[in-house]
């Protein structure tokens, strides 16, 4: 389970560094976010949700069935967009409204 941080998109705001429940994300010499040990990641997606610059993507490790798909997150007011890109397929956008309770 893990996440990948795109150094080109990261502005070094530190939001993900603050939020990670395992203190796993640190800053490099340029102030940008780095996940020191990807295998320590719980997959809680907190960093994904905190980053306002879409610099974090989320993926499944190969050992749990990952095939290279990436998931990103974007917030538009109260609506969360979970954006999934899978090679060879149209991107998927699942919108979840914070004001709607789970049906299940």
């Amino acid at each position, binding site marked *: 389970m893990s996440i990948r941080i795109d150094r080109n998109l990261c502005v070094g705001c530190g939001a993900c560094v603050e939020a990670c429940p395992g203190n796993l994300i640190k800053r490099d010499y340029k102030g940008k976010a780095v996940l020191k040990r990807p295998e320590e990641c719980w*997959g809680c997606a907190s960093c994904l949700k905190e980053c306002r610059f879409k610099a974090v993507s989320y993926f499944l*490790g190969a050992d*749990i069935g990952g095939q290279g798909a990436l998931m990103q997150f974007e917030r538009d007011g109260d609506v969360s967009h979970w954006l*999934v890109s899978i090679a060879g397929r149209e991107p998927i956008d699942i919108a979840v409204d914070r004001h709607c309770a789970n049906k299940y």
Partner: protein
Amino acid sequence: MRNDGLKLEKIHADMLVIGGGAAGCYAAITAARLNPNLRILVLEKANVRRSGCLAAGVNAINAYIVDNHTEKEYLEYVRWDAEKIIRDDLVLSMAKRFNSVARNLEKMGLVFLKDENGNYVSRGKRNVKINGENIKPILTAELLRYENISVINHVNVTDLLLGERGVCGAVGFAVNYEAAFVVTARATLVATGGAAGMYRPNNPGFSRHKMWYPPFNTGAGYAMGARVGAEMTSFEMRFVAQRCKDTIAPTGTIALGVGAKEVNAKGETYASRYGLSTSGRAQGATTEALEGRGPCYLQTVGISSEQEDDLCRAYLNMAPAQTLKWLESGKSPSHFNVEIEGTEPYIVGGHTGSGYWVDTSRRTTIPGLYAAGDVVGGAPKKFVTGSMAEGEIAAEAILGDLPALPEVDNEILTSLSQDKIAEYSRRMTDGESLYDVFELEEAMQKNMDNYAGGISAKYRYNEKQLTIAQERIAQLTKMASSLTARDMDEMLHIYELIDRLTVCETLIPHLKARHETRWPGFGVNADYPERNDECEYFVNSRRRNGVVEIVKRPLTVGKERYEHTN
């Protein structure tokens, strides 16, 4: 810096809360509301905003008294599910508060599903439906509203300070810079959650932290309590959960949400053979696989595409890996059943019964020390509302007890904390150790897996194996004492390992002491594979001079109050 040790921060508070999760935050909020003059300090290992079990969000309010049902029914449900080993006073006292806690969460901004009359919509007899994705930011926004609450994030607490008259604070270190913290307080609440990572996990390689319980809840609270001699209960009632294969995501959403039944590889429903309790469900999946009828699934084939979309959204709100898995694999739940498996054993008082032995007011057996949430034993099925209710109960007890609690003697404390701070500093000055912390962690997990009833041992253990496990844990504990750290991040990993080893040191004697198999899904004592009605008691333990002593205590059926006696 290396040679002059750590910078020292000394702080005094009236009430110290260790761990800002569901229980700790709600305890602080309760105390601050009831007494605006009280100085409350929360020390949190990560950042309260997204720390602990609630980080990814929760699926539902799992503990609620739905209309036309009663707290007594909840008590009887817990008694049945935990095979009698529960404290009536603890379960009833939290159950009485489930609904008021839920209402307070709604006031803070949590979204509840409501019917046309404005009543919460329930899922089964005990659950209500919510959007729980942002439950933690909501709870912490409330926490930070109070001026008399200070929160220090990114401080890992390792030990309690034990003076002559009880606990009077705690010590820890900053995880991002070289500083040690000594906090003195008249009352200390431990709310660090349960423990994961003692056993080799379901996914031992790259995704080794893709587990159900947070891998960052390392049992620190159990460990620090055990070290000061606090009594613990029911560690042998480990929690093995039935979860989705690979992602280890909860299954209740599918089972309760779309009514999916468990089926084995032959398509047979098997649950009734093992019983419908939490232990029974875990036992079902394991045994079916063991007898060659695995893998097991939740039968979702045939659900509508609308149901499937709602499931995908519900998982994004708490376990996004599962939704990604469905999309990426192309095996959507309407067309493919969802494979399930049993997890590695966790120690977690919010689901099963392991943790501090407390009185009805959540006082531990050590004066000045209180406990709430997953760290407390004897009250399974507390979930998020029960953990918060316990925080509230403990906060009320602290406010009542404070006038009688002694002022802290700073001199004694300084000398008590000095040893610990010297230990932290020593780790940063000494040369490199032969083994690193991750190698020792792997050794611990392998040992527990093989000899103390982990996944590869099919959750079975016997006296002889447990003795081997115990010897190895003792060796590893000794080896961990000489681990050195290049930076504070390594320091954190070292103390996380030490927490887990200390949990193992308590757990193994508990497993040895129960001469029966009461919860076959959570573990089978192969020397005593049957349930024995003569074992209807609590197995408790206390550490004296480094040795874990077992105490057996009677059940408390029908008692609504419990006070510590000896």
